[in-house]
């Protein structure tokens, strides 16, 4: 049965019976899920549960065995990652070390019809949004972990994607920085109104940040609910995973 998006939200992403094998290993076992427009959605689970595979499936980096991915009413079957209206923030941030901060942020704008000045303006606006205005001319390899994270966010958001995919974006930061970025990410998501899908193994992080959480275990969604519901009325299977 498909887990529906909340009635007040228009469904943006619809996953139908997603199956994925790596050789003998059954990574995704029939995922049925809808995610709404403007939702902050988290995929929570232990390592190896399939959450990153599911995220990469939405991004277009994984070929699935069967099932369908619908994005804004369009079937994404055969649409490669570079043609999808999704952008990703990688766990390692993947900041291009040979470019400046501004060149990193404007990287995806190369083919856009904007003029050179407009591109620079858009990049600066994106940097401003993540609290890095004035950093444009810095060399990317000289940035701190938190700053790289912000550049990665700006680089993805400047393209105005329909969905922003975040693969364990806070796991490389120290505790203080992580808590600060949690708050900033929530604020940022409200500001841009884009659907965020966050992959994390940290239950506190998921509970604090998300509108809805899907707890995953062994390639299946064990429970999908609001943070409050998940916290107060967990299905035993879901909690077992969380406490593990």
């Amino acid at each position: 049965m498909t887990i529906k998006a909340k009635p007040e939200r228009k469904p943006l992403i619809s996953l139908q019976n997603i199956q994925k094998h790596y050789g003998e290993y059954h990574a995704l076992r029939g995922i049925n899920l809808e995610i709404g427009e403007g939702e902050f959605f988290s995929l929570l689970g232990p390592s190896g549960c399939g959450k990153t595979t599911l995220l990469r499936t939405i991004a277009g980096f994984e070929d699935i065995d069967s099932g369908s991915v619908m994005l804004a009413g369009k079937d994404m079957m055969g649409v490669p990652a570079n043609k999808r209206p999704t952008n990703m923030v990688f766990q390692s941030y993947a900041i291009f070390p040979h470019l400046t901060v501004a060149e990193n942020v404007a990287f995806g704008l190369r083919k856009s019809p904007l003029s050179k000045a407009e591109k620079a303006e858009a990049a600066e606006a994106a940097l401003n949004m993540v609290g890095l205005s004035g950093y444009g001319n810095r060399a990317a390899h000289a940035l701190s972990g938190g700053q790289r994270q912000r550049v990665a966010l700006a680089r993805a958001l400047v393209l105005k994607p329909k969905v922003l995919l975040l693969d364990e974006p806070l796991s490389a930061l120290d505790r203080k920085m992580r808590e600060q970025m949690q708050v900033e990410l929530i604020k940022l998501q409200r500001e841009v109104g884009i659907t965020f899908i966050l992959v994390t193994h940290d239950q506190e992080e998921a509970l604090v940040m998300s509108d809805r959480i899907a707890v995953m275990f062994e390639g299946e969604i064990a429970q999908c609910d609001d943070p409050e519901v998940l916290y107060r009325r967990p299905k035993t299977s879901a909690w077992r995973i969380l406490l593990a």
Partner: protein
Amino acid sequence: MKTLKTYAILYLVFLYAPIFLLPLFAFNTSTIIAFPLTGFTTEWFTALLDITEMHSALFNSLKIAVTSAVLATIFGIFGAMASTRYHFPGQKGIMGFIMLPLVLPEIIVAVSLLVVILKLGLSTGSWSVIAGHTLICTPFAIAILNSAFAALDPSLEEAAYDLGETRASTFRRVTLPLVMPGIVSALLISFTISMDEFIIAFFLTGADPTLPVYLFSMLRFPKLLPAVMALGTILVVLSILLITIAEIFRRRGAKRAGLKDTGGFL
């Protein structure tokens, strides 16, 4: 400790002293290579200008070395990408066979290539030396480029693809600039190997000898020996210059890319 130090110094003297003898005799007036030195002259360097056969051998060598280096580096990029980016059945075996010329005696490569060329009814020439040199340089290029590609975070390429680039433009905008220091190293090493390779060139060269082959044939004429010394001096200076330039370039690239300096190929 003291014996080790003495050993190290003797080792270096043994390694480099002959090279320092080159310029010494290149500027000596006597045609006989022996001490004591008889006087200073630049006559052998001016004599070089008149030996046209040597010029054509030098240009032939340069032509072969540049072509082999470019080919070996291009094949090296393909090979290094295949071995670091993809997994396919038989990968280990195939990579092993590609790397084999690294340890294969050159005489075997030379003789077997000669047999194949003659049996096919073709004639040897610069092209056959290029083929042989590309064959022995490619494993060196792959070895250098393997480490350059392995050091590259694969999510950098995924990020570029995710941001709307194609596979080809991702390679151009991200992969290529980040492995450029490795490419320069591979070009340089391949060029050097080809430039001073003798056995394959000796077997496979046609009417136009390469520089090492030409120099070997000149050893029969003692009168020309000081000129050979002068040429050697020029080559030593040129190679030191070339390697220094490449190393400066590599360090600058590594610094710009924020990579840790691993000491390079030197």
